[in-house]
C-alpha cells in the first residue's frame, strides 16, 4: 500500500513524458519503404540518378578526365599535377589510383539509385508514366555499366535494390560478356518504354532514340555490326520524330549559354553554373583542367590549370583548313594582359601549346576559372550516330553510297561554308574506309571522351602509342595490361572474391 503510494508520487513527479513510447518520428526525412506512392515519386527518384552522373566523380572530372588522358588526344600539360592523373595518362596506374577510386563508386551510386527506382516502382500502381521512369532508370543503369565494363572488364553486377549490403559483400565478378548482355537487355527495355521525346524536347533525359543510339554504340563495341547498323539507322530514319539534326555551326555545340535542348544532342549531362550539392553533385572541374594557366578569357578571367593538354602533334597534324580545328582549340589568348600566341601559354607550367577549347572557352557562368561551370557535356550526339551507321554499314557491306553519305553529312557541316574537308568518294572501301571513319571520329569527336574507347575496341593501342605516327608516344604501353584499368584496391581488400585483379596490376 505504502509502496504503491510512493510509486504514484514517483510517476507524478517523474514527469509528464514518462509514458513516451520512444518511437522515432523523423520529420523531414524520407524513408524508401514509404516514399513511393505516386508515379511522380518514381520520377523524382529517377531524377536523383542524375545527381551522381553530373558529379565531380563522374562527368565533372574523374571519369571524363581519365578518358581524355588515357587516349592519344590529350596529354598531361603541367607535370606538377597530382600523380594519379599522370599515371592514367602514362600507363603507370596502380590499384590504389585516385581516379578509379572516385569514379568506380560514382558509377555504382548511379546503379544503386537506378535499382531503387526499379524496385520502388513495384510499390506503385503500374502506368505508362511509371514504365517510362523504369525505362529511364534501366537506361541509366545500362549507361553506368557500359562505362564500367569497358574500363574494368569483369565487374560486380548488381541489378536489385540493396536492403542488406553485407549479403553482397562476398559476391564474385560477373563476366564482361554477361554484363554486356544485361546492358543490352536494359537498353532494349528502355527503348520499349521511353517516349519519343521528353517534355520540352530536353536532351538531358533519355528517349527511345537515346536508347537506340546507345544500343548502336554497345553493339558497335561488341563488333555486332548488323545490330549496330540496325539501331543506328533506326535512329537516323526516325530523326524527325526524335528531333535530331546536325547543328549548322559546329561551334554551337560547345557554348554553355546555348547548350540546353540542342537538336544535335541525343544525350547530354547538364551542369548548372556556380551551384553545387553535397558529395560533389553538380561540381564540374573539366573546364579548369582543360583550360590554360595564367590566361584570361571572357568566361574564365582567372585562366585554367593546364592539366589535360593535347600534344603538339594533335594540333600540327590537324589540317588548318578544318573549321573543327579552330573550334576545338584555343591557340591564342590574353596572357598577362597581352594577346599572345600559344608559345606564351602557361609560363612555369610546361605546356606552351594550344589547349582544348570545347569545355573552357565558353563555359558560361562559373567561379572565374571555369570551375563549377555551366557546361552541358554531350555524351551522344547525332554526328556520332551518323559515324556509327557508316562504320557498321561498312562492316556489314551496306551500299557504298549510303555509307559515305553518312560521313559526308558530317563533313558538309564541318565545312561551314569552306571547301574543306571534301566529300568522301564512294569508291573507298575496306580497311581504308574503316581507317577513314576512325580518323573522322577522332577529329569530329575530339576530346569528347570517345577516343580511348575507340582505341580499345579497335585494338589501336600499339599503333597509336608505339607506332611511327604516334601523336603521343608511350613506349611502355602494354596491350596485355592497359586496355583494362585495375579494380580499386579498396574493393579487393573488402571482398577477396573479387580477385583476381586485372592482369598486370
Amino acid at each position, binding site marked *: 500500500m505504502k509502496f504503491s503510494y510512493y510509486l504514484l508520487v*514517483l510517476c507524478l*513527479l*517523474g*514527469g509528464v513524458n514518462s509514458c*513516451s513510447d*520512444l518511437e*522515432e518520428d523523423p520529420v523531414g*526525412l*524520407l*524513408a*524508401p519503404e514509404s516514399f513511393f506512392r505516386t508515379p511522380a515519386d518514381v520520377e*523524382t*527518384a529517377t531524377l*536523383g540518378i*542524375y*545527381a*551522381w552522373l*553530373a558529379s565531380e566523380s563522374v562527368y565533372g572530372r574523374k571519369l571524363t578526365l581519365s578518358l581524355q588522358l588515357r587516349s592519344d588526344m590529350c596529354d598531361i600539360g603541367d*607535370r*606538377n599535377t*597530382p*600523380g594519379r592523373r599522370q599515371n592514367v595518362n602514362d600507363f603507370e596506374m*596502380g590499384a*590504389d589510383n585516385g581516379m578509379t577510386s572516385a569514379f568506380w*563508386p560514382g558509377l*555504382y551510386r*548511379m*546503379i*544503386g*539509385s537506378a535499382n*531503387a527506382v526499379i524496385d520502388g516502382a513495384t510499390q506503385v500502381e503500374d502506368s505508362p508514366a511509371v514504365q517510362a521512369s523504369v525505362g529511364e532508370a534501366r537506361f541509366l543503369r545500362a549507361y553506368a555499366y557500359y562505362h564500367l565494363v569497358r574500363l574494368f572488364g569483369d565487374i560486380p553486377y*548488381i541489378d536489385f535494390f*540493396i*536492403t542488406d*549490403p*553485407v549479403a*553482397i559483400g562476398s559476391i564474385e565478378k560477373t563476366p564482361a560478356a554477361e554484363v554486356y548482355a544485361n546492358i543490352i537487355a536494359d537498353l532494349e527495355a528502355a527503348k520499349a518504354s521511353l517516349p519519343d521525346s521528353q517534355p*520540352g524536347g*530536353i536532351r538531358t*533525359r533519355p528517349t527511345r532514340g537515346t536508347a537506340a543510339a546507345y544500343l548502336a554504340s554497345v553493339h558497335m563495341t561488341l563488333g555486332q555490326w548488323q545490330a549496330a547498323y540496325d539501331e543506328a539507322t533506326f535512329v537516323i530514319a526516325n530523326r524527325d520524330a526524335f528531333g535530331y539534326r546536325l547543328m549548322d555551326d559546329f561551334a554551337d555545340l560547345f557554348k554553355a549559354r546555348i547548350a*540546353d*535542348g540542342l537538336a544535335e544532342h541525343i544525350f547530354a549531362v*547538364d551542369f*548548372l553554373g*556556380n*551551384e*553545387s550539392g553535397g558529395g560533389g553533385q553538380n561540381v564540374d572541374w573539366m573546364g579548369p583542367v582543360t583550360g590554360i594557366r595564367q590566361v584570361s578569357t571572357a568566361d574564365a578571367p*582567372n585562366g585554367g*590549370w593546364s592539366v589535360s593538354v593535347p600534344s603538339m602533334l594533335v594540333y600540327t597534324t590537324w589540317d588548318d583548313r578544318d573549321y573543327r580545328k579552330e573550334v576545338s582549340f584555343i591557340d591564342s589568348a590574353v596572357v598577362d594582359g597581352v594577346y599572345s600566341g600559344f608559345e606564351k601559354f602557361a609560363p*612555369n607550367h*610546361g605546356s606552351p601549346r594550344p589547349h582544348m577549347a570545347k569545355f573552357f572557352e565558353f563555359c558560361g557562368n562559373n*567561379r572565374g*576559372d571555369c*570551375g563549377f561551370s555551366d557546361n552541358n557535356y554531350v555524351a551522344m550526339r547525332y554526328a556520332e550516330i551518323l559515324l556509327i551507321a557508316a562504320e557498321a554499314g561498312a562492316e556489314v557491306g551496306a551500299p557504298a553510297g549510303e555509307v559515305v553519305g553518312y560521313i559526308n553529312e558530317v563533313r558538309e557541316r564541318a565545312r561551314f561554308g569552306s571547301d574543306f574537308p571534301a566529300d568522301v568518294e564512294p569508291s573507298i572501301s575496306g580497311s581504308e574506309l574503316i581507317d577513314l571513319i576512325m580518323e573522322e571520329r577522332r577529329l569530329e569527336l575530339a576530346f569528347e571522351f570517345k577516343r580511348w574507347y575507340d582505341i580499345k575496341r579497335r585494338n589501336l593501342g600499339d599503333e597509336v602509342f608505339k607506332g611511327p605516327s604516334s601523336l603521343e608516344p608511350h613506349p611502355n604501353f602494354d596491350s596485355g595490361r592497359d586496355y583494362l584499368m585495375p579494380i580499386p*584496391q*579498396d*574493393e579487393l*581488400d*573488402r*571482398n577477396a572474391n573479387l580477385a583476381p585483379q586485372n592482369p598486370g596490376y
Partner: protein
Amino acid sequence: MYNTYSTVRRLWATPLLTCVLLLASSLTAVAIGPAVLDVSGRVTDTGGEPLIGVTVRVKSTTAGTVTDLDGLYALSVDATDTLLFSYTGFATQEVAVSGRSSIDVVLEADAATLDEVVVVGYGTVKKSDLTGAVSSVKSEEITAYPTASAEQALQGRAAGVQITANNGAPGAGFRVRVRGGTSINASSDPIFVVDGFVGASLPPPEDIASIEVLKDASATAIYGSRGANGVIMVTTKRGQAGQTRIELNSSYTLQNEINRLELLNADQFAAYQSEINPDFEQGDSDTDWQDLIFRRGAVQNYQLGISGGSDNVRYYLSGTYFQQEGVIVNSDYERFSVTSNIDITASERLNVGLNLLAKRENTNSVATQETGSVIGVAYRFEPDVGIRDAQGRYTLARISDRFNNAVALTNEPRDQDNVDQFRGSIYGNYQLLPGLDLRSTFNASTNNGRNGFFSPRTLNPDAGINGSGRVRNSRNMSLLTETYLTYTRDFSASNLTLLAGYSYQRETSEFFVVGNRNFVTDAGYFFNLGGGSEPTIPNSGRSESDISSYIGRINYSLNDRYLFTLTGRYDGTSVFSEGNKWAIFPSGAVAWNMAREPFMEDSGLFSNFKWRVSYGLTGNRAIGPYSTLARFDDVFTVQNGTIVNAVAPTAVANNDLTWETTSQLDIGVDIGILEGRINLTADYYSMETYDLLFALPLPEYSGYSTLLSNIGRVGNKGVELSIDTRNLVGAFRWNTNLNISTNKNEILELPEGNDIFYNSGPGHIVGLGNTQVLRVGEPVGVFFGFQYDGVYQQGDDIIPGGSFDTEPGGERYADISGDGMLNSDDRIIIGNPHPDFIFGITNEFAYRNFDLNLFLQGSQGNDIYSYTLLELDLLAGLNNATTAALDRWTPSNTNTNVPAAQGGRSRRSSSRFVYDGSYVRLKNVALGYSLPAVVLDRFGLSRLRVYLSAQNLLTFTDYEGYDPEVGYRSGGGSSGNQNVGLDYASYPNVKGFTVGVNVGF
C-alpha cells in the same frame, strides 16, 4: 573602528534582529550582547611550527579571522563563545573560550582526507565508503591558470584521463578520454554531469567547486547507456550559511605561438623550383608568411563571485568574462557568463533550490586544419611573391592550384559564431520519513548558435561571383526530469542506503542555413544576405531523441570495513529499432577497509588501506537519431538548366542495431601512510567493449559507402597510479601530486577479421591512398603505408612499380612482400599514435606568503603522422618546403635521406612522415604572493594574492613538426577515435605569460 565593523557584520547575519538593530548600531553596537572579551593566541602544528592562514571562527556566527605569518590571531568574542580552528589538511578543532583571553591551539594533521565527501551519481558518499574508482580535481587546480574551458584545465590532473587539444584556436574544443577509447565509430567522449544535469556543457572554470571523474563500472553504471566512456561529475560552487564572501579574480595573459616551422626563403625556394622547372622565374619578393599572420595574443579573464546566506537561504552569484585575442590575426574568442545557485530550506523537511546559468560565447575564426587553412597556406605558399601584385590584388599561388595567399585568407573572410546558452535546474528534496528522502529535479537547457560566414570578392575563387555569404542557425534543447527516493538507515554495526528512481530526457535540435552570392558590396558581410542576387539553396533539419531510465542502487557497509555496492540502470532510447530499445546495465562492487581491522589499526602505520573490486556493464548509445532508418535524401539534379526535385538512397536500414556494451573489471587500492602524509591510489582495469557501433565500409559496388552495424570488439587495459604526498609541512610546505596512467587499446574483433582502411588527410592532399588501418590485434588508428628506405643512389637496383620513383635521388620504399616490385602489397603498419603512458606532476611549495606551483605534463611512446610535413617535403615542386629540403639529394649531396626534387612524384603514405611524438611539457609554473593579514585588515580584505604564471614554457620533444601536442580531425564522435596523433596545419598552441590577482572581501 574595526571592532564596530566586525560586530555590525555579525549582526547582519541574524535576520530577525537586523532591521531593529541596524538603527541602533551606530550608537550602541559595542554594547550589544554579553560580556565582550579580546582573545588571542597562536596556532601551531604538532611539530610546533606556526600555521599561517588558519581560519578562526566563532561558532554559529560569521565573526572570524585568520592567523598571520607567525600563526598568531586576535579576536573579540563573548566569554561563552566557542572557537572553530580549521585549516586544509588538518582536523578542525572546537575550543570553548570559557572566559580565557589567551588560547593556543595545536592542530593535528587530518588522519587522511578520508571523510571528504565525494560526488557520485545521484548522491554523495564519504570517501572512505567509496567502492568505485573516482578521481577528484580541486577548484584550485581548475583555475591554476586561465583557460577558456574546464576541459583544458583538467589536462594532466587526473589519472586515466587524457586530454588533447583538437586545435589550438581560441574557443576550440578538446578531446577527452577516460581510460582510452572504448569505441571505434561511436563517440568515446565521456558524459558530463553538471550538478545532476546529464549531458550538460561545462560551466566556466571559476564557478566549479570540484570535478569528480567516475571511471569504473561501479561508479558509472548508474549512468547506464551513457556510462561506458566515464562520467565527469562537475559540482558548481554554492553559498555557505554565514559570512558573505566576495571574490574577485582577474588575470591578464600575453601569448605567442608555441613554435614555427623553418621554411625555405625565396632564393632557396627558387633554387629548388628550378631543379624541377628550368624555366622557373623567381619573383622579386622574399616573404615570411608566418610572420605576417602571427601576432601577439592576449587573454583577459575576470570573475566576480558573491556567496553567503543564512541558515534558510544560501546563494552563490557569479559573473565571468573571458576574452582571448588569438595569436593569428582575426581570430578571437570571448565568453560572458552569469551563474546563480540558490538553496532554500523551506521547512524542516523540504529543501528546494534553483541553478541558473546564462552564457554567451562569441568566436571569430580563421580557417585551419583544412585545405584553405591559413597555417597550411602560410607554410606552402611561394615565398618569392609578395602580398599583392602590381595591380594591388592579393597574389595567388602560381606553381600549383591557384589558391589565395595566407594574408588574404587571414584578413578577408569573416567566420563568426555566437552561441547563447541558458540552463536552469530546480530541485526539491522532501523528507518523507526519517531516513527516506524524495528528490525531484527538473532541468532545461537551450543552446542557440549562429554561424555567419562571408567570403568577399577580394578572394580569388569568388572573384567571379562577387562575394558569398551564409548564415547558419541552430537550436538545441535538452529537457531532463528525474525523481528518486533515497533511504538511509544506520543499524548498530552496519549502514544501508537504497536508491530508486526514474529519469526521462529529451534532446531536440534544429538548424537552418541560408546563403547568397553576387553581392552589391562586401561591406555588409553576412549581415545583409538580401544584398546578393544568386541565393544558394536553403536547408533546414530537425532531430529528436528520447531516453527513459529506471535507476537503482544499494550501498551496504558492515563494521565500517566491508562495503558493498550494487547498481543498475534500465535504459530505453528512441534511436534504436523496435526490440532493441531497452537494456539493463548492472554493476557490483566490494571494498575492504583493511586499515580498520584490529590487526592493522594497532600498527598505526596505515591511516587508510582499502581494497576495491568492481565489475559491471555500461553502454554507449552515441549514434545520431534516425541512424537505424533507411533513407532517401534530396540530391542536386539539373535538367535543362533548371534545378529539379530529386531524391536518391543514401542509407540502408539496420533494424538489428543495438547498444555498444562495455564490461569492466577494476581492482584498486587506496593507501594512506604516515597520518595521511602519503596517499596512494592504484587501479588496474580491464575493459572489453562488444557490439561496437561501427560504420562498416560497404563494398562500393553496393552504391552505399557505409552501414552502421554492431560489429567487433575493442579492449582497453591499463594501470593508473596517483600519489599525493605532503613532503614538508609547517612553515615551508611542499606537496606533490603525481598521476601516471597506461592504457593498452586493442581491436579484438572486426567483421570477418577484415582490415578496414581509411584516409584522414585533407581533401587537397590527393593521391595518398589509405593512411590508417583498423586491424585485429592492433590499437585503433594505427598508421599505414610504405616503409621508407631512404633515397636511391647511383647504381642502386631500382624496385619497379607503378608511378614509384626510378631515378637516383628518388624515394626508396621497402619491398615488404618480396615480389620484386612495389605495389599496394608492400604497405604495413608504420606507427602507433597511442602513448605508452601519460602523466602529470604537480609540485606546490609555500613559504610564508609565497606559493609556487610547478605542473609538468607529458606523453611517452606515441607516434605522430604529419600530413603537414608530408605535403611540404614531398619535393615535387608543388609548394614551398621546410629547410629539410636544403639537404635534398643531388648528385653532389648523396649522403641524405631527403629525396631529390622531382616533379610528378606521387604522394605516398609512408614512414617518412611518421615521428616519435613523446613529450614532456612544463604546462604551468606559477608564483604567488599573498598579502599578510595585517595589511589586508587595513583595506577590509580577507585575501589578496597576486601571481605570475607561465604556460607551456618548456617542451622537450623530438617531434619535427611545430608541436607534439596535436589533434587533427580528432573532434566529434567517430573521427575522435580513429584520428589520433595526426597533424595538419593546426592553429598553434600557445606559450603564455600571466599576471593575476585574487581578491577576497
